[in-house]
């Protein structure tokens, strides 16, 4: 009976790093469990293998315009806009991924490394100049992410302050901005992207917008509103996630000091450490939604046509059958790919960029401030457990001679 199903999402955590007990309990029942979403019943995918199988199954649709599509918030059904490729399937989706693939290739992203390093170093200089303590999210997590996005899109240096101010306002972690201010920033960014396209048309540079203008807009393969929407989606899905991962990843290292020491002193661990932090934190915590367009069977369970699924990266990333001691943060772990960027054709398009940003951000931070520590007791660091993106946005840190009398 629908009213007896466990309601989802379940958000109550005892330890911020451990999945809610009620969620782990569901995982122990089966790889697929019926739950009650705000929009109605759906299947929660709790197992790693089931997650991978279903996310790479063409019978599972991302099209939110379909009747019965599962969502975490009650919202009006709207047809998916042209260019909103996250919500498209098959060839329509592949068209936009093909358009963007070169921009996020491993080589192209590696070429951005020097500029991301420079941005991190400048921000650390600024932190050191101002002196401790500081909220690492504001001083480092947010700006590392927003500057990387400026570089990706080709926002010229003289505009980067305007651009990052509005980008950061859009995702103001404390929602301090009135709704009108957030709407104003959204309009400012959309307007700016429009202007940027015009500018790159006249004066192209070595950046994503310039290339998409020349290869897609000018030959008429995409229309202008589509190009603008696609660019905007990169900001929407890429900024807050990466910023949050930098800050929350640092928090996790500071609260597991032996792990921090290992990463700081053995830089060859960095790549694996970033993967482990992505797995352990599973910041996109509630899940990835799809709807079955045909009956799909996993093991002895069947998702019937028209039923929704919600894949929990948080549970899949803690699956005991895949990860030994899954609830332990171990930067030396060598394990199967985590689900934090999803799986299948919708795998996060920004994963290459996010990974390199995280590697650089942690490396520079720990090299520059080797004695970085919390400026408050760990129990006073607030974690957001009820937001789409799990983590902390208030991380008071200190360094250098550890201010005498500090409460830590």
């Amino acid at each position: 009976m629908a009213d007896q199903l466990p309601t989802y999402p379940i958000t109550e955590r005892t330890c911020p790093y451990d999945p809610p007990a009620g969620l782990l309990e569901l995982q122990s029942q089966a790889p697929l469990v019926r739950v009650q979403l705000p929009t109605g019943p759906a299947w929660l995918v709790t197992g790693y293998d089931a997650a991978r199988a279903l996310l790479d199954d063409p019978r599972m649709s991302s099209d939110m315009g379909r009747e019965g599509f599962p969502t975490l918030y009650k919202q009006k059904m709207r047809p998916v806009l042209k260019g909103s490729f996250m919500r498209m399937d098959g060839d329509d989706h592949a068209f936009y991924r093909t358009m963007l693939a070169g921009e996020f290739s491993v080589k192209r992203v590696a070429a951005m490394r020097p500029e991301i390093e420079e941005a991190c170093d400048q921000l650390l200089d600024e932190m050191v100049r101002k002196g401790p303590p500081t909220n690492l999210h504001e001083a480092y997590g947010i700006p590392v992410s927003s500057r990387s996005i400026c570089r990706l899109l080709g926002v010229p240096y003289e505009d980067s302050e305007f651009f990052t101010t509005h980008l950061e306002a859009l995702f103001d972690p404390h929602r301090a901005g009135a709704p009108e201010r957030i709407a104003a920033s959204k309009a400012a960014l959309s307007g700016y992207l429009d202007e940027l396209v015009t500018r790159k048309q006249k004066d192209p540079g070595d950046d994503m917008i310039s290339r998409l203008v020349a290869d897609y807009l000018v030959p008429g393969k995409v229309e202008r509103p589509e190009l603008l929407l696609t660019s905007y989606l990169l900001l929407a899905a890429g900024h807050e996630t990466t910023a949050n991962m930098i800050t929350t990843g640092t928090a996790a290292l500071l609260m597991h000091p032996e792990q921090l020491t290992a990463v700081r002193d053995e830089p060859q661990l960095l790549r694996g450490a970033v993967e482990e932090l992505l797995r352990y934190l599973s910041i996109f915590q509630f899940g990835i939604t799809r709807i079955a367009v045909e009956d799909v069977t996993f093991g002895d369970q069947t998702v019937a046509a028209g039923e929704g699924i919600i894949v929990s990266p948080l549970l899949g990333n803690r699956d005991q059958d895949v990860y030994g001691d899954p609830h332990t943060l171990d930067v030396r772990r060598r394990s199967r790919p985590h689900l934090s960027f999803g799986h299948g054709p919708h795998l996060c398009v920004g994963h290459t960029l996010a990974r390199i940003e995280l590697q650089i951000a942690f490396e520079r931070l720990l090299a520059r401030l080797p004695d970085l520590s919390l400026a408050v007791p760990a129990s006073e660091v607030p974690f957001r457990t009820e937001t789409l993106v799990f983590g902390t946005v208030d991380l008071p840190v200190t360094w250098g001679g550890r201010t005498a009398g500090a409460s830590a």
Partner: protein
Amino acid sequence: MSPAAEPGRLLRVDHAACCRSGACSLVAPDLFDQGDDGKVLLKTARPPAHLWEAAEEAADYCPVSAIELETLPE
């Protein structure tokens, strides 16, 4: 890249299935590259034994199972 290729393993990619994720080049750069369009480029079909593990890892990382590592009969 592959000197006196060792017998034993055959690496294959399904170019049509490849969704240009770049995951393989990221985890096994000695075996995979990407074209300007993001499509996978296989550097060698007969990886030397010391890269078998990297090849297996890449196959696991591929989000659409477009990479296969076959064991050749003796």
